[in-house]
């Protein structure tokens, strides 16, 4: 019995076979680009070919917008995608999801895989990254001892912060032995307590020359470093694995040296600024203490007579002691200027006044000080406070007019 199939049936069978194949569901293909067209829709249509075959390819706009390069006829590429069949045209096509130049082929794939693996381990996390020290005393440089990199680092550091020490830790920076050499150098840095920050890197070069810095061992050694690491792999645009792991990344060794050290002039200014603030703050404290002392002194002068509630002699002594104690306390804590102020206080104190023979006249009942002859009349009782006691007196006469030197004032005044 002859089975007759429709075109659609046959087409569908081919589609099922092709799309059911596990390899073709996600496959890397190496081939040469030809008949490349960038459609106005943004989709890319081209063929990949080799010596004996060709296959049609399409890379839709969503995918190809992320391409790091522009495909062109004749280019050798690696393309990743799935094979499918477009029934309407009968074309079996590779639906390309990712593509890259084939020059560094499997090496670049390995780089991507390692990058993703270490990223998943958290080695690139921002939280892991340490702050660089502000004023490192010793900057280590893991690099070739004969390259431009070390010369640049030394030049920049000598210019910026001359007092810093540069500790060269020689390493091979390209070739097969380079990764081990760099790891060994970083291990030496770890074993010494001298270093504050380390620069790992080399001068510019091709991506192949920089490849040691994509090595897993180097990445782990950087991650395990006890002090902050600045990677300086001499490539403006491309990032190596070392760049991702390091605490900071610099595009060149010179830039790394600038990151590692502060500018001397700036630091000088910072120190000078701190000295100014220090001086101003200290003066502020002294000024405030002086204010408080003067306030206390004034209030003591006014309040002191009212404290004579008990026996005048004892009260006087107590008041005198309080003032003296207060003054002494301040003197102990203070400096010369305060001492001078305290001495001045004593001179103005009523105790000194009394000792010199003056008396304080008060009304006995409410103890208000009598300052004016107008506030008393003949026959009033007044209290006269002297240095060593007090007198109860009756006003016998009132005489107006200021006393001047040489005239005896023996009425309504002290000494009565």
């Amino acid at each position, binding site marked *: 019995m002859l089975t007759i199939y429709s075109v659609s049936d046959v087409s569908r069978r081919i589609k099922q076979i092709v799309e059911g194949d596990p390899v073709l569901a996600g496959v890397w293909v190496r081939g040469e680009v030809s008949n490349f067209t960038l459609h106005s829709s943004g989709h890319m249509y081209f063929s990949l070919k080799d010596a004996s075959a060709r296959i049609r390819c399409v890379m839709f706009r969503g995918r190809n917008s992320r391409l790091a390069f522009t495909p062109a006829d004749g280019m050798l590429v690696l393309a990743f995608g799935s094979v499918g069949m477009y029934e309407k045209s009968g074309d079996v096509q590779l639906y390309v999801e990712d593509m890259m130049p084939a020059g560094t082929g499997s090496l670049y794939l390995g780089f991507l895989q390692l990058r993703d693996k270490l990223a998943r381990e958290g080695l690139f996390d921002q939280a892991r990254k340490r702050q660089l020290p502000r004023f490192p*005393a*010793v900057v280590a440089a893991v690099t070739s001892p004969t*390259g431009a990199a070390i010369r640049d680092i030394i030049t920049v550091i000598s210019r910026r912060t001359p007092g*810093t020490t540069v*500790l060269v830790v020689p390493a091979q920076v390209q070739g097969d032995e380079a990764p081990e050499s760099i790891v060994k150098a970083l291990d030496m840095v770890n074993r010494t307590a*001298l270093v504050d920050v380390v620069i790992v890197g080399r001068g510019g070069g091709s991506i192949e020359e920089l490849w040691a810095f994509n090595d897993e061992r180097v990445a782990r050694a950087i991650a395990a470093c006890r002090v902050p690491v600045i990677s300086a792999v001499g490539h403006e645009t491309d990032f190596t694995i070392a760049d991702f792991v390091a605490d900071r990344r610099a595009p060149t060794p010179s830039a790394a040296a600038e990151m590692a050290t502060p500018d001397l002039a700036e630091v000088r200014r910072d120190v000078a600024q701190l000295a100014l603030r*220090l001086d101003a703050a200290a003066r502020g404290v002294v000024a405030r*203490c002086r204010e408080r002392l003067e306030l206390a002194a004034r209030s003591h002068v006014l309040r002191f007579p009212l404290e004579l509630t008990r026996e005048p002699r004892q009260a006087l002594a107590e008041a005198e002691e309080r003032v003296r104690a207060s003054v002494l306390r301040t003197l102990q804590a203070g400096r010369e200027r305060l001492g001078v102020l305290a001495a001045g206080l004593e001179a103005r104190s009523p105790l000194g006044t009394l000792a010199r023979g003056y008396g304080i006249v008060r009304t006995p009942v409410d103890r208000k000080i009598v300052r004016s002859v107008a506030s008393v009349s003949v026959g009033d009782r007044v209290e006269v406070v002297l240095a060593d006691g007090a007198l109860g007196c009756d006003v016998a006469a009132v005489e107006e007019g200021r006393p001047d030197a040489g005239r005896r004032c023996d009425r309504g005044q002290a000494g009565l």
Partner: protein
Amino acid sequence: MQGEGATAGKLGFEQAMAELERIVSVLESGELGLEDALEAFEKGMSLVRACQEKLSQAETRIAKLVEMKDGSLATEPFRVEEGPG
């Protein structure tokens, strides 16, 4: 080779600066009594002098880290040579 931390009165420059900033901050807060404030001021000024002294050092020291046969680490003088970049 002595670490730079051996000078500046036992404090490295970084620590000296940090301590100085702390003292200034406390003084400015106004919390200190007169005696403490003056003591802090004196300490601060000595730190300022130490920092300025360190900053006046004009020479960059360059050394090379090497491993000896017994595995210990040592430093040697380093001279920049011309060579392949």
